[in-house]
């Protein structure tokens, strides 16, 4: 099956939360067929590379295979946290979208939900 390098947004959804200067971002596979790809390739190292420009010092990954979900805990990524950050988005609420956009994985059609606009990429 053909694989294309696409943002993980094609096969997963995410939500970011904050506690102090620590951001946590979940990464949840839409389909069972996308889970192995995410589990094997969404590593702490890759996520660290995506957030180091924001000051991230360390990324820890937690796994919930029964829910097809990973949870990344990212230290020092919030410019001091909601009470001292100078950023527009003091909570880092939008960072889930950053992960979905910047994490690029080799993705095949069967990993993508049937209504997804990403399926067009495989046509023609």
């Amino acid at each position: 099956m053909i694989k294309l390098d696409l943002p993980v947004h094609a096969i997963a959804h995410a939500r970011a939360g904050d506690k102090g200067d620590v951001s946590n971002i979940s990464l949840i596979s839409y389909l069972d067929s996308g889970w192995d790809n995410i589990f094997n390739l969404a590593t702490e190292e890759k996520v660290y590379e995506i957030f180091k420009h924001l000051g991230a010092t360390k990324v820890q990954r937690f796994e919930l295979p029964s829910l097809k979900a990973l949870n990344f805990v990212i230290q020092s990524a919030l410019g001091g946290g909601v009470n001292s950050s100078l950023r527009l988005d003091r909570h880092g609420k939008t960072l889930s979208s950053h992960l979905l956009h910047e994490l690029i994985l080799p993705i095949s059609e069967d990993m993508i939900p049937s209504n997804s606009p990403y399926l067009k990429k495989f046509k023609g």
Partner: protein
Amino acid sequence: MIEKVFIGCGAGFSGDRFDASIPIVKEFKNINAPKYLMFEVLAERTLAIAQQFRLKNPEEGYSPFLDSYISPILDDCLENNIKIISNIGAANPMGAAKRILEIAKKQNTKKPTIGVVLGDDLLDYMSNDEILDSPTMEGLDFSNNKITAANVYLGAQPIAEALKKGADIVIVGRTVDSALALGPLLYEFKWKQNELDLIGSGTICGHLLECGAQVTGAYFADPGFKDVPDLANVGFPIAEVSQDGSFVITKPEETGGLVSKATVTEQLLYETHDPSNYLVPDVTADMTNLTLENNGKNRILVQGGKGKKSPEKLKATICCDNGFMGEAEISYAGPNALARAKLAGEVISERIQILGLQGQLRVEIIGAGSVHYSMNETSSYQLPENGDYRVRTSAIYPKKDQAQQMVDEVMSLYCCGPAAGGGGRGYVTPQSSTASILVNRDTVEPHIQIKII
């Protein structure tokens, strides 16, 4: 024996929709089982602000939104035996209870019995030095600042006790959010402190409810990829909890939103770090064995919650004043807008230097990756030279007039900046910093009181 307990959540943060609880109350009218409505309205900083209000007027210091949340549903709740549990007390739970009695009198409802949980305010029984000498989990060195608020997170037990004493409404100050649901479950199901899996399950249930509609399709929609029906009328969550700790997450009939495995999973991990060690005063909850199952339309059955021994110490949040933040914005649009916005940012930076304002200045361009990058970082998005961009600057200074000076510099771009800047806005807001400390249970527990009024 009670088979099921119903818990609805009518607010997930201070300022959440004031009418969100009405469909839950309507649904509960037809249910013949123990029914609870929780309101979670107390963020970390909210309490520091509330303390300031209480210092100015000892009658105040409870949530400024109390009337807006309670007035629309109070009579229906009292008439239909729907009990209300809320941290709406903020810095003054007793003041909140008195205000609710006033509302009840004005609305001519039956007189509610209100349970008030006290003891979270460390400033009542610990000195500044004792607080500062406590081990710090995270946050700043506060030694040079005056503490404006110091509140320890209480657990679910005091809420359960207040219910046992006959409360129709339980008002708390700082209490862990999940306890607003666990408290009623401890009381109704008589779960014992050593039944850790049940307490873990009840905590996970509370965690899923505590942010309101974030579990029922709000904060979820990504049009075309992840659609949510009728988001404008999103229904707030209801948990139907069974004696064995399993529960169904659903929402009222005739509301918008969506309850699916995906919405529940997103909320489960929201503000969670290690999912096998979710620490609250009541238990160390473990989410890693959870299963989610479809149980009808907009119904997800959650099973398999576990619990381990509760953490030895309690977490407290302390707040202090931390200067003033200036924020200001100005827009550039049309041909070559990106270059004009960048020039505006450079001018502001240079002017701040000339004025000698010390401290970090952040300059970012809204429309050019502001929330994921800043001006000095390269956005991965392809940015058109022509477009609609908004320069934003921010800085925190010790004094209010310094923050105002920075804001004024951005406003000066109206006449002194690049061509065609418009829509300038500026704000100066007082800042409160927080840190988390650990406190011994022995220090706190003797001060916990449940008052019934």
